């Protein structure tokens, strides 16, 4: 059952019970008091009548000092006539409880009379057809006789009012309930609005729209729930975006890899096919064989680089205290054979915590890239500086530079700023991807500052030896 319907239903049940009970109690209370008043009145009247009767009996001229039945009847008739306007009826009975005088319409049995003892007064409420009466009974001591006086007072009015009260209350309760249902419906709809909005949001999200957010319409617990739901959706969306990015990156990688694989393969297959199916002259045979060789080498280089990346990703880095001087000297000796460029080394002596083989790989890659980007004879600066945050390595060239929109892409595998140019210099587009991987193992990253035509400055910061030991322990 819907929550709003439950809410309406329960409110209605409680309202009906409260209204019904309170109405019943109220009407009954009014009835009880009215009836009591009527009874008191009837009793008073009874007393007055008794007194009047006794007085009248005293004033009757007596024969033999005895009150005759006829005289009793006479007095009663007189009393009856006096009380006609108040719709009062009476009955007088003798000692043996035989009726001496009965008013017209006095329609009651002798039950009350039977119960009435001497010097006692009694009453009861009886019903006769449509009418309700208060019947009272008492002794009358007149001269030597003890008579019984009964009165019958019509109290139908009180009962009628009670029935009226009930009916009015019933109608009012029904009316109130109808109004209540209408109003409660609106209230329930208003109260459950956050729930409906949340339901809609969950459905939208289930259907794949992760950017959908529920509107917050209240400041209560449901409003808080909406906020929490939205922050959950936020986290979810972020995660999904991240996953999608990762999938996209993986797809891009596979696509790029397939492309990079196909290019040398096309040449190798094509030239090999030519060699086996054609009679070629010596020059063409050599050309074909050479292409097969160089393209095969290119594939080899690519697979080795890929392997490097995979090994770096999986492998364990051996962190140790490394002197920056040893790193720079090693690089210097590596690049001595390269006479086309002018290398300038400036560095501070310090110690860093790193895997020296991996860091040398990064530096060689950066220098290689700098050479590829520069014209022969230009300057390449290799710098090492102590800084607050650690030790900064920088490789600066004055070559072609990297367009700003491509700077965040260059660490992607197979990405080349100038494809034909890098490829003609034996690049596979994997160097910076490897560097990024190695540096992430060192909790560092490549920082690129470059402008097309002005050259690039690519650097990274390693933490200095000494204060980092604790960190390394935590991380490994």
């Amino acid at each position, binding site marked *: 059952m819907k929550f709003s319907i439950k809410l309406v239903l329960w409110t209605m049940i409680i309202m009906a019970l409260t209204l019904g009970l309170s109405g019943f109690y109220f009407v009954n209370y009014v009835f009880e008091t009215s009836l009591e008043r009527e009874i008191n009145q009837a009793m008073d009247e009874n007393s007055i009548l008794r007194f009047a009767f006794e007085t009248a009996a005293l004033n009757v001229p007596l024969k033999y000092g005895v009150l005759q039945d006829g005289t009793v009847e006479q007095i009663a008739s007189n009393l009856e006539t006096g009380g006609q306007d108040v719709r009062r009826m009476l009955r007088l009975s003798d000692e043996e409880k035989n009726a001496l005088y009965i008013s017209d319409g006095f329609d009651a049995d002798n039950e009350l009379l039977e119960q009435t003892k001497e010097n006692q007064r009694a009453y009861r409420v009886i019903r006769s057809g449509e009418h309700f009466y208060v019947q009272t009974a008492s002794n009358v001591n007149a001269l030597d006789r003890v008579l019984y006086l009964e009165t019958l007072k019509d109290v139908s009015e009180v009962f009628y009012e009670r029935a009226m009260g009930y009916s009015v209350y019933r109608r009012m309760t029904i009316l109130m309930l109808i109004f209540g249902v209408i109003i409660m419906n609106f209230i329930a709809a208003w109260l459950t609005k956050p729930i409906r909005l949340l339901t809609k949001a969950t459905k939208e999200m289930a259907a794949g729209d992760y950017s959908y957010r529920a509107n917050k319409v209240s400041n209560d617990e449901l409003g808080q729930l909406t906020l929490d739901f939205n922050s959950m959706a936020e986290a979810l969306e972020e995660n999904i975006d991240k996953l999608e990015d990762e999938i996209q990156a993986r797809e891009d990688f596979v696509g790029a890899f397939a492309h990079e694989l196909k290019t040398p393969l096309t040449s190798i297959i094509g030239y090999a096919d030519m060699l086996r199916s054609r009679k070629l002259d010596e020059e063409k045979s050599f050309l074909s064989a050479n292409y097969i060789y160089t393209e095969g080498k290119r594939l080899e280089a690519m697979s080795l680089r890929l392997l490097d990346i995979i090994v770096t990703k999986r492998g364990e880095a051996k962190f140790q205290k490394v002197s920056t001087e040893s790193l720079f000297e090693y690089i210097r000796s590596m690049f001595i054979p390269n006479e086309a460029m002018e290398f300038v080394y400036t560095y501070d002596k310090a110690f860093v915590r790193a895997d020296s083989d991996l860091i040398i790989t990064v530096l060689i890659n950066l220098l290689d890239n700098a050479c590829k980007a520069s014209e022969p004879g230009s300057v390449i600066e290799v710098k090492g500086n102590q800084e607050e945050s650690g030790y900064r390595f920088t490789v600066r060239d004055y070559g072609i530079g990297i367009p700003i929109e491509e700077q965040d892409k260059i660490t992607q595998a197979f990405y080349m700023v100038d*494809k034909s140019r890098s490829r003609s210099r034996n690049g596979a587009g994997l160097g910076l991807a490897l560097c990024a991987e190695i540096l992430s193992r060192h909790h560092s990253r490549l920082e690129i500052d470059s402008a097309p035509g002005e050259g690039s400055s690519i650097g990274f910061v390693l933490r200095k030896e000494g204060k980092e030991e604790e960190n390394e322990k935590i991380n490994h």
Partner: protein
Amino acid sequence: MIRILIVDDEKPICDLIDLNLSAAGYYCVAVQDGIKAIEAIEKDNFDLVLLDIMLPGVDGYDVMEYIRPLKIPVIFISAKHEVRDRVKGLKLGADDYLVKPFEVVELVARVEAVLRRYNKAEKQVTIGDVVVDVEARRVTKAGRSVVLTNKEFELLLLFVENKNVALFRETLYEKVWEGEYFADSRTLDLHVQRLRKKLGLEQNLVAVYKVGYRLEV
């Protein structure tokens, strides 16, 4: 002579296409980027352009946009093998789309097919007294019509397109029967034998030991 422009950023691939198409009797010009391709088209007339998509500078799609109004037939040659890439290439108005790595035989066949469509290729090929009408799929020997089955004709066409090239059994199977090559199948040999007999090519259609057959002219 039919002139073909080859546009590919890889020199080895340019050379490969160049060598093979030149051997098939075409005149080839190779350039390595989009701008140079457009310059070459400006300067010279070409009957066909073989166009790579991933080019430095101006990419293949842009070059295609430039070529389209000139009504020069274009075959895209790309490592992009996905259907949407092919559809994009063909929608731009290319006549064919060849995926790298490709077989030389296939390249030559596609080039011939596109040129035939533009009525630029030779419609008739002559080997001795045998005349092959490629368009009408009719073969005559010394003026007399010879009836060939479909497969026989396809086989003959492949030999004619690759004169003096040793065609491997698996290549022949792949191209003519478009199916798996079974080492012990004699179907190919039977067809070759029938071709020799029907067209009197015993001297020209020679078996190459352990390889396949070659049409020597």
